[in-house]
């Protein structure tokens, strides 16, 4: 087990609305989500003594800007990462480490962006590692991730139709999520009729672009009993990566991502196996990549994730409910912190708060997205570069 296991917990979650265009500043969105998370924890800004955030192509603010906006007087540690969606769970891990080290008591983790209305782009030069990709027309993430999926399709026979089943499943989940952006029904035929973007990806294989912010509060587990909802325990964490960008230049099989390596250490750090996972919120920039994450983390055998999805195993009543909020494909593009929030919602004693259940959860899938007996949740960032196992109890 990791020595940090069960020593820290997520105690607060908050978000703004998600939309194609929000006419407010990134700082304003970050502040709102953060205040919501702090309030959700039953804490005040005076209790926050650490701030962690991450961005991609400099599309967000530095932690100190939020320190100023929240009037934090006592910030002991800040972390800013440029590593984007791969770092989503490492952001939580960073907060946990600061607490476990005794440097901080309650750390705010946020991700705020105007990912659709104010798209930042990479620099218009091809320097450093970019000189091996940009001159050849790779400017969309689909062109960077696509070769992994093409190789997976070639090796295992995964198909565009398989991707359709995943997209439809996640759209069904999003329709039970009050904050989800995409809630109109999607059929297999709709997916197959959507235009090719960058083969093997159609439009409906690709995640959304959106504006909005998400925040969570991480606290010491032995102080979390005093918070409003109590602790969701962080049992295991990983935050490494393959040396090459997306493993694109890796000599080993392109059909595997870092997830496969991370999984071994994540489960060992939790003293668990994939069989212990009740549900999973797996980074879904593209349908095909999400399937590879399932396999990487042992929730399906190599090449078998598509079959599990087709069989309904990843539905809310399936053996391994997945992306129960709709994910990046249908909830919003919040760079993976939304996956952490969903896991926490599922694991809390009162369960999910923003589906359409009026009172207690009845698991009627016309209005309820609460997973039955959710005790252990897996969350991962892009390529499985970072991951967490969260639990409802010890």
């Amino acid at each position: 087990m990791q020595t940090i296991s069960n020593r820290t917990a997520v105690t607060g979650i908050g978000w703004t609305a998600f939309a194609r265009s929000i006419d407010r500043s990134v700082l304003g969105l970050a502040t709102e989500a953060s205040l919501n998370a702090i309030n959700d924890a039953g804490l005040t800004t005076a209790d926050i003594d650490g701030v962690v955030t991450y961005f991609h192509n400099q599309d967000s603010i530095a932690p100190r800007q939020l320190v100023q906006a929240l009037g934090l007087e006592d910030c002991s540690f800040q972390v800013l990462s440029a590593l984007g969606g791969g770092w989503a769970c490492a952001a939580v891990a960073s907060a946990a480490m600061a607490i476990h080290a005794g440097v901080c008591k309650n750390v705010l983790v946020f991700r705020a962006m105007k990912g659709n209305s104010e798209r930042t782009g990479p620099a218009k030069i091809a320097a450093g590692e970019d000189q091996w990709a940009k001159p050849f027309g790779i400017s969309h993430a689909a062109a960077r991730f696509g070769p992994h999926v093409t190789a997976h399709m070639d090796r295992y026979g995964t198909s565009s139709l398989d991707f359709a089943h995943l997209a439809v499943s996640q759209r069904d989940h999003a329709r039970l999520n009050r904050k989800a952006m995409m809630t109109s029904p999607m059929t297999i035929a709709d997916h197959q009729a959507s235009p090719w973007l960058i083969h093997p990806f159609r439009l409906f294989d690709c995640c959304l672009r959106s504006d909005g912010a998400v925040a969570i509060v991480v606290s010491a587990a032995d102080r979390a009993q005093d918070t409003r909802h109590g602790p969701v325990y962080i049992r295991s964490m990983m935050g490494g990566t393959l040396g090459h960008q997306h493993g694109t230049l890796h000599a080993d099989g392109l059909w595997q991502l870092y997830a496969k390596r991370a999984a071994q250490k994540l489960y060992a750090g939790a003293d668990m196996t994939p069989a212990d996972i009740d549900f999973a919120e797996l980074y879904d920039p593209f349908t095909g990549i999400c399937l590879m994450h399932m396999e990487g983390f042992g929730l399906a055998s190599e090449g078998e994730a598509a079959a599990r999805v087709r069989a309904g195993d990843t539905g809310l009543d399936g053996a391994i409910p997945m992306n129960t909020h709709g994910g990046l494909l249908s909830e919003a593009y919040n760079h993976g912190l939304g996956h952490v929030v969903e896991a926490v919602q599922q694991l809390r004693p009162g369960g999910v708060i923003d589906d359409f259940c009026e009172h207690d959860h009845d698991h009627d899938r016309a209005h309820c997205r609460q997973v039955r007996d959710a005790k252990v949740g897996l969350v991962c960032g892009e390529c499985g570069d970072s991951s967490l196992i969260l639990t409802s109890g010890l």
Partner: protein
Amino acid sequence: MSAPTLPNPDADSLPFWDGCRAGYLSAQKCPSCERFRWPPSEFCPFCHHHGGDWTTLPGTGTIRSFVIVDRAFDPGFVDRVPYVVAHIALDGADGVNIISNVLIEPADAVAIGQRVMVEFVDTGTIALPQFRPV
């Protein structure tokens, strides 16, 4: 063609781009452990020997994977849609895989396992490697 973003050669990669200008692909072979490395680097990533011998390669290779870009997101490639971006394992340099374009008509005739050969496109300052099926 509309202009792609040109690479910025640096201290590590300049010999590669000079080789392209002279009409050949090359990669570093470690004089100590004899393994090829990519991307170019001062130190061997396997044995950490400082230095690498630039070795001329035959210019042929095999497609390991690819995408077909149907919608232009890169301004420099607007008039090339649909175009192929591929990962190519280079002959003569075990483990060296580079990213490039495969010039093939129609674009969806590209396949994993296809054999390809380099040709260089002169952009004025840089000679960009591109590949064609053989």
